[in-house]
Structure formats: structure tokens, C-alpha cells
């Protein structure tokens, strides 16, 4: 429907939308009064996935299912979305802050000749225009931005926006539009999977544990992973730890790593350098454990323990085990 708020589906590449979709759909519904549609480009959709999008509030799913859409390539996806947008005139096009959607939505905005608000942490209607809020300058400042014209293109930071409640029985109309799928010039060679830790993905995790220089060495991260398994947390690291070669770069939290915004952040032996804070200061609850009572991270922590992490972490793991009955 013209004037709808679109949410581009981020999925697990196996046919299921990721839970961040509940957040983008929920926010789009709040802003538009429920005029929300999902746009799903995939090589493999599923009935369960389509049902889930409906239950999260999508009134319609524009489904483009084609083998040529995998793996994601911006040069293929962006023209499909903009062709559809040209026909359907959405008021807004939202994505999530993931590696592919950050690129995709930038391309979509360029093709449509409209503004892009990347990594929004708040969105608000101001009369008939949308205002986006985004952290800038290492998260020290907040910038409010407005678009010259619609569609308003934005990516939303995970874990910040209130997710839609899943309502059983709500269904989305599934429409399979006829669109041109351009030929790719980028030839897919291979995908190299990382060894799975069995823990949640850093960027989307609701609880994140971070180990800094105070971890003293790569061999000690195992105690954080044990805690991670008990509370269902991702385990990341500070730049100091990554630069020391203790953890691969994909685990880095901060300005030159991942920006995270979990419900709970637990930092162990993390001093709280500005570039680390840039990547985690929008976390809802911050816990810091550090031997140094002067560590800057205590200035933004909700709870702090001044002490030896090698005593605190095992004790925390035991205490959470009791609490969670594991």
C-alpha cells in the first residue's frame, strides 16, 4: 500500500527472520499506526517465517524468492527493492544494523536519491516528518536528522527499539511481485564459516560479556565463555585484547569493532577507553569488574565491583547457576 512503512527482512539464511525483525516491525508499526509491510528477498523463505512476520505485525510480505538472491549482493538486491519501491511508494524503508543491511540500505537510498539515517537509536514523528536520532563522535554526541523527502531510509540498531509482541492469529498477506533480478557481476567463490562458540552473535545478543586487558591472556577467556553459557551471553573483547592477539577481530566491541546495545553488558578487566565506550555505551545495564577503582568504565557503570576478576567471574557463574537453576 502506498504510504506503508517497509521493513527489509534480515534472516538466518535458512528461511527464518531474525529476532531483530520484531524490533524493526514493532517500531515501524508504532510510527505508522500499523501500516507496516515486510520486504523479503531470499533464496529460501519458509511458511514458519512468513507466519512469524505476520504475527510480528506485518500486514503484507513482499516476497521475492529466487536462487540468484543468495548470497547477498548489494548490486542485485538494491535494484529489486528500488524497483518495487518505485511501484508501491512506501513512506519509509527500514533495515537493521547488520553487515549486509548497512550496505544495502545505503545503496537503496542512493538509487532512490533520498537520505539515509544509519544506526538509528530513536525515531520520532514530528508532524508529518520523521526525525532520526543517531550517536556520533564515538557516541559522545547525539545527532537528530531529517530527510528532505520520503521514502525515509534508515537502519535501526538492534536491541534498542521495543520489539513487537508476537500475536498468534495475525497473518500477513503474501504477495510475490514481478520484478527484474539483475545479473550479478560479483562471482561467489566460497563461504568460510567461523568455528561456532555455541554462544549468541555479538551484535544481536541481549546479554554481552566483554573481557579486556585484565584477562591477562587468551587462555583465560574460557571462564567468560563458561559464564556466557550459563546466562546465554555473547563474549566479546576490548581493542586492547584484540590488538594483543588474544581474540579475533570479529569479537571486538568498540569504535573499530562492533557496536552493541544489549540489555545487560558485563565488562571484566575492561578499563573503559573512549573507543570501547563508543561501542557499548547505549547498553541498558552496565556492570564493570576491575581491580582499579579509578578505571573510567566505573563512571558509566550501573553496578561495579572493585576486585579481581579471576575470583569474581567463577563466583558469578556459580551464583547465576543457582539463580537460573542450571
Amino acid at each position, binding site marked *: 500500500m502506498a504510504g506503508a512503512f517497509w521493513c527489509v527482512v534480515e534472516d538466518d539464511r535458512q528461511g527464518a527472520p531474525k529476532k531483530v525483525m520484531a524490533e524493526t516491525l514493532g517500531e515501524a508499526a508504532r510510527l505508522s499506526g500499523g501500516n507496516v509491510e515486510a520486504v523479503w528477498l531470499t533464496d529460501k523463505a519458509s511458511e514458519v517465517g512468513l507466519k512469524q512476520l505476520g504475527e510480528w505485525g506485518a500486514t503484507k510480505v513482499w516476497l521475492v524468492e529466487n536462487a540468484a538472491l543468495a548470497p547477498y549482493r*548489494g548490486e542485485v538486491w538494491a535494484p529489486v527493492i528500488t524497483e518495487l519501491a518505485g511501484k508501491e511508494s512506501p513512506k519509509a524503508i527500514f533495515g537493521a544494523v547488520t553487515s549486509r543491511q548497512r550496505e544495502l540500505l545505503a545503496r537503496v537510498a542512493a538509487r532512490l536519491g533520498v537520505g539515509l539515517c544509519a544506526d538509528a537509536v530513536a525515531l520520532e514523528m514530528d508532524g508529518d516528518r520523521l526525525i532520526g536520532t543517531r550517536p*556520533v563522535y564515538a557516541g559522545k*554526541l547525539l545527532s537528530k536528522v*531529517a530527510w528532505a*523527502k520520503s521514502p525515509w531510509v534508515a537502519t535501526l540498531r538492534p536491541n534498542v527499539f521495543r520489539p513487537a509482541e508476537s500475536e498468534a492469529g495475525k497473518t500477513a498477506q503474501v504477495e510475490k511481485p514481478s520484478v527484474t533480478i539483475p545479473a550479478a557481476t*560479483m562471482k561467489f567463490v566460497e563461504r568460510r564459516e567461523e568455528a561456532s562458540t555455541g554462544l549468541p552473535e555479538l551484535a544481536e545478543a541481549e546479554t554481552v560479556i566483554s573481557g579486556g586487558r585484565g584477562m591477562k591472556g587468551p587462555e583465560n577467556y574460557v571462564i567468560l565463555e563458561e559464564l556466557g553459557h550459563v546466562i546465554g551471553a555473547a563474549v566479546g573483547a576490548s581493542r586492547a585484547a584484540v590488538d594483543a592477539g588474544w581474540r579475533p577481530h570479529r569479537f571486538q566491541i568498540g569504535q*573499530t569493532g562492533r557496536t552493541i546495545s544489549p540489555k545487560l553488558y558485563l565488562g571484566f578487566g575492561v578499563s573503559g577507553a573512549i573507543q570501547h565506550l563508543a561501542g557499548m555505551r547505549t547498553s541498558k545495564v552496565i556492570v564493570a569488574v576491575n581491580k582499579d577503582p579509578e578505571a573510567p568504565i566505573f563512571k558509566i557503570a550501573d553496578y*561495579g565491583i572493585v576486585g579481581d576478576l579471576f575470583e569474581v567471574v567463577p563466583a558469578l557463574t556459580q551464583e547465576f547457576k543457582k539463580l537460573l537453576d542450571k
Partner: protein
Amino acid sequence: MKILVAIKQVPDTATLVKVAGDAKSIETAGITWIVSPYDEFALEEALRIKEKRGQGEVVAVTLGPERAKEALRSCLAMGADRAIHVNDPAFNDADTLTTARALAAVIKQEQPALVLVGRQAIDDDMGAVGAQLGEVLGWPCAYWIMEETIDADGKTVKAARQVEGGLEVFDLPLPAVLAAQKGLNEPRYPTLKGIMGAKKKELKDVKAADLGLGGEPSQLSIVSLQALPPRAPGRIVAGDVATAVKELVRSLREDAKAI
């Protein structure tokens, strides 16, 4: 092989940043400026490609005010052969798309075989210019690059991009745009010889009119800029380890409802 590297001058992470009187921009007095770290990865990669191939030219480009020349001089000191400064007040309020269009105009004039950019600038963290360059130029583009190799005849680049859960490797026909992720390389420091030599290298100013661009209005504008509201003061959970941990877990469950 000619390689163009688009860079941005940004405040150093550790520098104090304050909102200016207009409530839309920052106070620039007293700021330490640097080349955005991701752009250094891009430049380093360009220099390595040139060195490996034993020939070529690396051109650093930026769009920004007069002070951005310092960032270009740093690039020349690191080893770039020459620099182009898109320096025109018409671009003062440029958003990512306006920036991408201006850089694309430079690229069309220069016709490099490869464009390297950082995955995002660490001032406004939009992370869009590289992707939008790909779109405006109609070139293949790979984001968050962790490694790359160009084939011997300079026709294709194999690039590994970081995605959730792994790396995806693609062959891109050249010309192409690559956006550098941390981990691609370790940027070199300029040598004294490099710094001295940089003064003799070409650093050219370019105006909007030279690029055939008028003052197209930006599509995204800043309404206001404000300091981050301070977090409510936290508390240090005191006591011996056993006591503190028990109290912390209780607080996280009952007060903060975070677990």
C-alpha cells in the same frame, strides 16, 4: 594500476568534542584531527598492492574544508603519490550521497582500476559512502573487506568480506569499490623521509564546478546535535567477593530486571 583511496579527516577519538553555538555542528577549536582509522587500512592496502605489483599510482582523495589538507598530507607521507582535495563551500552540508556523487565525479575523471575506502568514518559513523559510490558508479562493491588479492593481469579482485558467522569470498571484475574492515592490514607509520617527500608531491584543489556539479541540496540534514545525556550514577557493590557477587546477582534480577 591506478588506485584511488577516499579518506576523511575526523577528530581523534580521545579528543574532547563539544557542540557549537549553532547546536548543529561541533566546536572545531582545540580538536586534534586524524585520518579516520578505517581509511588508513584502505590506504595501506592500496600501497601494498602497488608495492606488490611493482608499479602503479595511489591517489588520495578527500572532500572537506581547508583543514582536511593535513589529512591528505598524512596520506602523502604514508606513501600516496598525489592527492586531490574536493574543497568547496558548496559541500559544507554534504550528506553521504552528495559526498558519494562528488567523489564519483573525481573517480570518473581519474579512471582508477580500484577504489578503496574505509568501511565508515569514525565521526558520523554513517558507513554509507563506499556503498553509495558503488551505486553511483555502477561498479561492483564489497564491504567490510578482511583480505583481497588482485589477479596478475589486473582484471579481477578476489575479496573476502566479513559477515555474521564467517567470511564470504567473491571475485569482482575491476573496476570495483572495496570498503576496508579492521583486520585487513596493519597501517605503516610515515617515515621522516616520507614526511619530507610529501611536501613535494602534488596536492590539487578541486571545486564543484570542476566536477560539473552544482549545489544540489543534501537529502539528509542535521536538525540538532546534543551531548549524550549522562547516565544515572551507578553504585559500587561492596563487600568480600562472595557477598558482592550475591548482591550483584540479586540487584540484576530484582532491581534492574536484566537477567
